């Protein structure tokens, strides 16, 4: 019997082993409630579940709900324009479209759960628009918006073309809308695009209201599919691919060497691309800081998570560095002329390239420093860590 004592630790270990999840992810995953001791005196607790709740209830859902408020104004402006196709109504419709487009920038990054399943971003904001195909659909009225191949003839970019790209001047555009033969066809197509946007975003909002919100908040476990891990990956992916590359890098030609202004977001509007980018950047930074949507409050966020981790590490204040970098990027971009004129009038577009570099500088801070500090896996390839 004297040998029995060493069986106990083995039994306990086996018990823990049996109970723990068998995740073969490349790196240790983060989990909820990361308690952190500050100099071993006052325990600081970071509650990841509280962060998920804050994201869902104070940022994501309010942003989706607000989108429909703004979008309703846009739709009523459309209805007015449909019955009275005047230059004044066109100007109003354009302004409401811009508000709706900006509201979209506030939800574009939430490509998770129902939005991911429905490929929302690709369906709402794929640009540049295929103008030839769009014109063909207007004439034949045989478009099928459920086809992936038709993503570039609908959404906000298609509306941009219909509002700004049909002709040079407003008078000419109005003339097209009032033409006997084609006017109604354009107006009808406009309506189809509006309905497609509305129904798709509504599907996503219904998904959130119909149970995904609870799934999202409850999924605070330790795995590659946990909400925080998934969302941080999506957040960085949005910043890198859609904000940095899509709105700046690709039009600048930083990946090809030749500028391509036609790939600008809202290409047919004079200077809207800047505004849309800045709205996206604001949305990114507000999300990072956990700021409640459209109110002054804030809650647990990536920034407060970094603060909590930092109190353990006594390192540099990473959340401050990231916010500073966002601010520098915003200042640089704000000082630019319209993206289109920057690109078309300068060879190379030096100022805009410098602004791009500042936007780019936040990527390693997010992707290397933040991810590393939080021990979040940047991808979901399974492999044994070492």
């Amino acid at each position, binding site marked *: 019997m004297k040998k029995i004592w060493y069986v106990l630790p083995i039994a306990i270990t086996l018990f823990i082993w049996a109970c723990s999840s068998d995740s073969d992810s490349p790196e240790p995953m983060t989990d909820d409630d990361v308690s952190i001791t500050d100099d071993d005196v006052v325990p600081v607790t970071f509650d990841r579940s509280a962060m998920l709740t804050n994201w869902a209830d104070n940022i994501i859902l309010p942003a989706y709900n607000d989108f429909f408020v703004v979008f309703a104004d846009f739709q009523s402006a459309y209805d007015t324009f449909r019955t009275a196709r005047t230059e004044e109504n066109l100007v109003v419709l354009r302004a409401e479209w811009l508000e709706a487009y900006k509201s979209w920038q506030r939800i574009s990054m939430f490509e998770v759960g129902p939005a991911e399943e429905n490929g929302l971003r690709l369906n709402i904001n794929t640009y540049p628009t295929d103008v030839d195909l769009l014109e063909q659909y207007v004439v034949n009225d045989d478009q099928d918006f459920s086809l992936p191949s038709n993503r570039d003839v609908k959404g906000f970019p298609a509306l941009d073309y219909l509002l700004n790209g049909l002709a040079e001047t407003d008078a000419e555009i109005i003339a097209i809308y009032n033409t006997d033969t084609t006017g109604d066809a354009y107006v009808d197509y406009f309506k189809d695009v509006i309905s497609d946007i509305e129904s798709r975003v509504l599907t996503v909002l219904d998904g959130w209201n119909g149970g995904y919100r609870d799934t999202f908040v409850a999924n605070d476990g330790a795995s590659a599919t946990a909400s925080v891990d998934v969302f941080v990956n999506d957040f960085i992916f949005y910043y890198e691919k859609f904000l940095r590359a899509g709105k700046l890098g690709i039009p600048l030609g930083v990946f090809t060497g030749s500028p391509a202004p036609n790939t600008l977001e809202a290409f047919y509007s004079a200077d809207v691309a800047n505004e849309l980018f800045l709205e996206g950047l604001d949305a990114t930074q507000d999300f990072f800081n956990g700021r409640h949507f459209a109110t002054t409050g804030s809650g647990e966020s990536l920034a407060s998570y970094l603060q909590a981790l930092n109190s353990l590490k006594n390192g540099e204040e990473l959340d401050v560095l990231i916010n500073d970098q966002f601010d520098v990027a915003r200042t640089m971009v704000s000082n630019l002329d319209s993206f289109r004129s920057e690109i078309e009038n300068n060879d190379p577009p030096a100022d805009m390239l410098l602004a791009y570099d500042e936007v780019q500088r936040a990527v390693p801070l997010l992707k290397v420093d933040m991810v590393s500090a939080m*021990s979040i896996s940047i991808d979901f390839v399974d492999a044994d860590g070492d």
Partner: protein
Amino acid sequence: MSQVRTYLNQRVEAAPLAVFRILFGLLMFISIIRFWAYGWIEKLYLIPKFHFSYYGFEWIKPIGQWTYLIFAVCGLASLAVAVGFKYRLAIVTFFMSFTYIELMDKTTYLNHYYFVSILSFLLIFLPANVYYSIDAKLNAQKRFQFIPKWNIDALKLLVTLVYIYAGLAKLNSDWLFKAMPLKIWLPSKFDLPLIGDLMGKEWVHYAFSWIGAGYDLFIPFLLLYRPTRVVAFGLVVVFHILTRVLFPIGMFPYIMIVSALLFFDSKLHHNILGLLSKWLPIDKRIFDNNAILQPKKGVIHTIKYGLVSLFFIVQLVFPWRYLAYPDELFWTEEGYRFSWRVMLMEKSGYAQFKIVDKDTQRWFYVDNTKYLTPFQEKQMGFQPDFILEYAHFLADTHRAKGINNIAVYVDCQVALNGRLSQTFIDPNTDLTQIKDSFEHKYWILPFEEEIKGI
């Protein structure tokens, strides 16, 4: 010399080696099945368009759909090893196929894969099939109850080396005095039953660091010393299962647990095999024939002793090659691999490559996702040899697209063990002008801090 001869003539029971052969073969078989079932063959070897090669092994690549065949061969060979059927052929096949798999892409480098490779190499020279195997059952001439003692000692020596080198590698200031990287990794393990609440405590991070280092350094001796052996084995089980729970390290813990069984007296192994014989229609008694496998003489066997000795000399010396390089080992990783440096770093990086057409002065950045999988990009981001190999690949790719006079630069930011990221590679170095070699990579910018220790 006579002492050497005396040693070579000492004999031990073959049972421990047979048990090891069976368990090792089975574990390897499970490994291959697991790898296959997880879809990793496709994900890691078929989907990527570009593969990172080891220096000098650029000719070893995945072979399309035939890659599955290599894994199938490897799996069958491991089964043949387990049952001891045509053992020599089986273990050579296993070593070749497994090593080929590991050399196909260094993105997947893991110390324990390397361990399996060299272990199977060593097993080629050991008579693991003379006892409790199909080979020995079929041929009474090849049936021996006793084998030369050095056969088992060689395996014990290899295991001991792995532990001690792994322990020595932990004797650095980050591990011991900053509890890094465990301080980053452990807090994320909060949902573990019983111990989850402890994972965020700083003293736990330090305790795990120091105990881990102590464990690696002393466990071989506790296993070798008879009075502490049973306790030591208990520690082995606890330690490795715990690492399995905390970290995604696959089959490694089980391999080490099986290896630790080698240190026991043969009584245990006879019991294990006796138990096995109750379940399987195998008559264990036919192997207990008191026959002794005598060390043979002749050129072949002299060569064998030479090879095994050379193998151990290399194993002893190779992990120290980092001393030949200046600057911080964790930063440059010159001499980092193949040296039992396990779980020492939380390191990540981000690399943005810039292609310059020197004729037109036109330039652009590379979208890495066009050429690399996320896993490859992640591994490439902080390892200099990956960055250089990829830069050359980019140069070749774009030369083919018509840029003749090309330069490739990289803006690479790397964070190590909780420090803020800093610039990793000299952004003004045209990487196309650099040839990969074993020389110091002077184009890596110096590490701004110092990590003291071995």
